[in-house]
């Protein structure tokens, strides 16, 4: 493994005063970037306000004395040049899809078409106040409704809300709809708490995303874990033994987090429906089945879609996302409102469903993300969307097969858009862990896959190459993973050595949290309040 000589500067060598020193940018060096607070110099300015000719008032005329601050609030004093240099250098210390392959399993880090950025920056969309009368916002209402209809068509559902900001928000919304539905059945009205409810359990497979159980807990339901069988799928016999009239529903991801399609899904749906439960579809992996099969046709009642995964809206370093939640017609009366709808005369308005559980967003959801996703759907069309899934599945299977003699393959079957490998044998043989593989990949110029998830596979590497990577990229990534498997403990233990920082001490970070620059500076001058 090639190693670059690493020069680790003492803290004193880090430039602290100059907006023009580029040493932290990887093409010039690997020094630390000072914080914006360290770049601050008294008297520097960047802001400029428009001239308004509004009469000037003194502070005392504007604010009653008891509301005036006693302490002067400090931010920073920097020039525009300082700001541009600082944040540009920070961006150069950041990996993104636009830099290279990003094979994080379950996260769907595919290329985001640039034209969708252009759409999301149209002033007709960005400069719209959300409280505007529907007469003023016909364009926006049309976009929202068209995306809702497209999502319903793609998932095989009837109605949707666009309010949830992300998958976890949609999950909780869906579970509250589930609750409202069951309550309407048993008592005819929705009541807070769950004391009277007979249905209090939600089933979740042991391979599920962490948000699923966290959302169930917040919805007030009890969690019952369903084990997976040796094929990595729901254990039907175990499921049967768990079903009863205390089941509110089941949350499933299909394909599941092992990248496997739940082959018995029709039977599972029938079994759950038979005891009066509902099926929730976690759409994290919907990108594998576009135009191939639909959650609605599988028997799901509630379906969320991650626009930031399947429909290529960029992840923004962790957000914003958006997660429309679609339901069958019998659950539509419970959806959050207001919802866009089409009037008979072809114009658009807002309506709130009769038994709505209420709003789940301050306004109408992450509207610009919705506009990007609709643009992506239009760009692809029905054929293109099916090709997206076919290519994603083809890429994943190629990569999986190319690595099956090098890493453990816990579930040997055709995978869907992602697959899980394990380093268990390599770990036993020479100590190579999933974390080591990830760090070695960084050394070789690739972003690593998801590691240590799903939890049911030891030393898991969860790989999702996506449809937007070429065969050449897959070959190089495959070769890198094979080379890493052959590395010696000395080699893999020191990786990565070419990045701007190396393995980070996470234990110290959690034990003595330094969460602001002020905490850091206080600690430096001896006022250590970290353990206070």
């Amino acid at each position, binding site marked *: 493994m090639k190693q670059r000589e690493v020069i680790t500067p003492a803290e004193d060598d880090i430039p602290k005063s100059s907006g023009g020193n580029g040493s932290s940018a990887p093409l010039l060096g690997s020094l*630390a*970037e000072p*914080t914006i607070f360290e770049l601050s110099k008294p008297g520097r*300015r960047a*802001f400029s306000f428009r001239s308004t000719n*509004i*009469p000037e*008032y003194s502070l005392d005329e*504007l604010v*009653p004395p008891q*509301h005036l*601050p006693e302490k002067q609030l400090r931010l920073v004093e*920097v020039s*525009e040049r300082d700001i541009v240099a600082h944040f540009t250098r920070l961006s150069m210390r*950041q990996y*993104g899809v636009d830099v290279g392959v990003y094979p994080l399993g379950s996260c769907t880090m595919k290329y985001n078409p640039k034209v969708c*950025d252009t*759409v999301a920056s149209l*002033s*007709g969309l*960005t*400069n*719209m*106040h959300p409280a*505007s009368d529907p007469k*003023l916002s016909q*364009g*926006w209402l049309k976009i929202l409704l068209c995306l809702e209809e497209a999502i319903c068509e793609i998932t095989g559902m009837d109605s949707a809300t666009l309010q949830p*900001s992300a998958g*976890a*928000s949609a999950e909780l919304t869906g579970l509250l709809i589930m609750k409202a539905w069951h309550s309407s059945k048993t008592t005819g009205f929705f009541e807070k708490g769950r004391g009277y409810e007979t249905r209090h359990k939600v089933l979740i497979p042991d391979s599920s995303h962490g948000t699923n159980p*966290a959302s169930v807990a*917040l919805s007030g339901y009890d*969690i019952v874990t369903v084990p997976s069988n040796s094929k990595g799928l729901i254990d039907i016999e175990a499921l049967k033994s768990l079903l009863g009239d205390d089941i509110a529903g089941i949350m499933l991801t299909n394909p599941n987090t092992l990248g496997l399609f739940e082959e018995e899904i029709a039977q599972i749906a029938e079994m759950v429906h038979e005891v009066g439960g509902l099926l929730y579809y976690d759409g994290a992996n919907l990108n594998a*089945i576009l*135009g191939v099969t639909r959650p609605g*046709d599988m028997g799901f009642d509630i379906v969320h879609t991650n626009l930031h995964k399947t429909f290529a809206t960029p*992840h*923004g*370093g962790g*957000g*914003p996302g958006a997660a429309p939640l679609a339901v069958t017609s019998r659950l539509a009366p419970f959806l959050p409102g207001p919802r866009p709808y089409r009037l008979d005369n072809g114009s658009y308005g807002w309506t709130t469903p009769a038994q709505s559980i*209420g*709003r789940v*967003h*301050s*306004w109408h959801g992450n*509207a610009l*993300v919705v506009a990007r996703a609709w643009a992506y759907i*239009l*760009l692809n069309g*029905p*054929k*293109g969307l099916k090709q997206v899934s*076919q290519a994603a599945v083809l890429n994943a299977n190629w990569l999986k097969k190319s690595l099956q003699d090098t890493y453990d393959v816990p579930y040997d079957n055709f995978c869907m858009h992602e697959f899980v490998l394990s380093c268990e044998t390599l770990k036993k043989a020479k100590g190579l862990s999933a974390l080591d593989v990830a760090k070695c990949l960084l050394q070789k110029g690739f972003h690593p896959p998801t590691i240590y998830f799903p939890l049911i596979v030891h030393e898991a590497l969860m790989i999702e190459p996506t449809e937007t990577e070429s065969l050449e990229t897959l070959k190089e990534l495959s070769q890198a993973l094979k080379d890493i498997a052959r590395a010696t403990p000395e080699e893999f233990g020191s990786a990565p050595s070419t990045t701007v*920082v190396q393995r980070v*001490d996470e234990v110290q970070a*959690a034990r003595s949290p330094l*969460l*602001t620059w002020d905490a850091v500076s206080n600690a430096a001058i001896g006022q250590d309040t970290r353990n206070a």
Partner: protein
Amino acid sequence: MLDFLGCESLDQLFDTVAEPLRFNGSLKLDKAYSEPDLLTKMTEISNENHTVDELVCFAGGGAYDHDIPAVTKALASRSEFVTAYTPYQPEVSQGILQALFEFQTFISRITGLDVANSSLYDGATALTEAVNMAASFTKRSVLFISDGINPAWREVLTTFTRGTSLTIVNFPLKDGITDWEASPPGYSESEQPPAGLVVGYPNYLGCLEELSVARKIATSLGAALIVAFDPIAMGILKTPGEWGGDIAVAEGQSLGIPLSFGGPYLGLIACKAQYMRYLPGRIVGQSKDVYGKKAYVTTLRAREQDIRREKASSNICTNQTLMAITAAIQLSWLGTVGFKELALRCAAAAKYTKQLLLNIHGVEPMVSSPTFREFALKVPLDPELLLERLIGEGFLGGIPLGKEGILIALTEKRTRGEIDAFAQAFEKALKR
């Protein structure tokens, strides 16, 4: 590639999808658009909107029409930030991690509180998470909330508390300020004391609440004081921390984020150190790498859903990182002096506008408490009709408050010329 897999067709890869489940035929969607055709279509549709470029905006209610400098737009659209995932691999994520660390520092400073997380979805969900924090911290399940909190936020809170069995007790406003002495129906003092008190600063009507009163009551009840604040107001008002607040939440849209029909926006949350391990979402900390070099990393991860699953304090995973970076850039651009100047300009514009409108016959203040940049007026005409007439004159005149009032908001963007014209149009609309 198919040969390598020993497959004859792409369909064979989907063999595990049973035949009855296969979707045969084509999805009923428009056929693919070329890039230029897509842009033509989307531009046409977006032109059906009447934006704040066309109508002079006096509407607020949690979304404000501020100027956004070129530098904020340019830096926040750097594709390394836009196309990154959550910074799980710190070696190649120092850019976003450091930007979020700086964001947390800014939010800690403008709230006067010890720690902040790296963002939540929006103001409403930040409020919900703060309430959940207070409930976990105090192990109580009653909440006192002021009617001065944004009604949409209260609705979101109510929706989500359907799962957590929280009892919400509403306290009315008296002349624009929360009346904590009121006896709300359905609650007697013999019941469980509250986990927290929630109050707006300024509140939904733009009024400056007497937070010292709320602090005293919270202290006497052993409850957390949760302050929903306007970030722009922090340029000239006492911070939630100075008032003794325990948790502060806000909608951060005003910090460089376009109106965007309501999203994506930015949920802000900050708290005192003792609440730190109850904070939801991602938090970035400064640490060192194996060579002792300064390095940032997501920390206190043991609180989060991917590790604690059903025992997590919150289900949040995806957040609003890109918006948080935007806010950090915007706050750097404003700086210490600009942040105060911005608040002064908003307050001055509001004072000037309020005086002009109150000169109009029949227009009265809805409440007399002091306000910051937003205020409520009682008008002698159905507010919906008044606002419709104002649209005809080229103004987005505000947000209706029931059947007799409107809520008007000002930013640094409004000029004297626009405000004078607005007052004239207002008078004309009332007379017609």
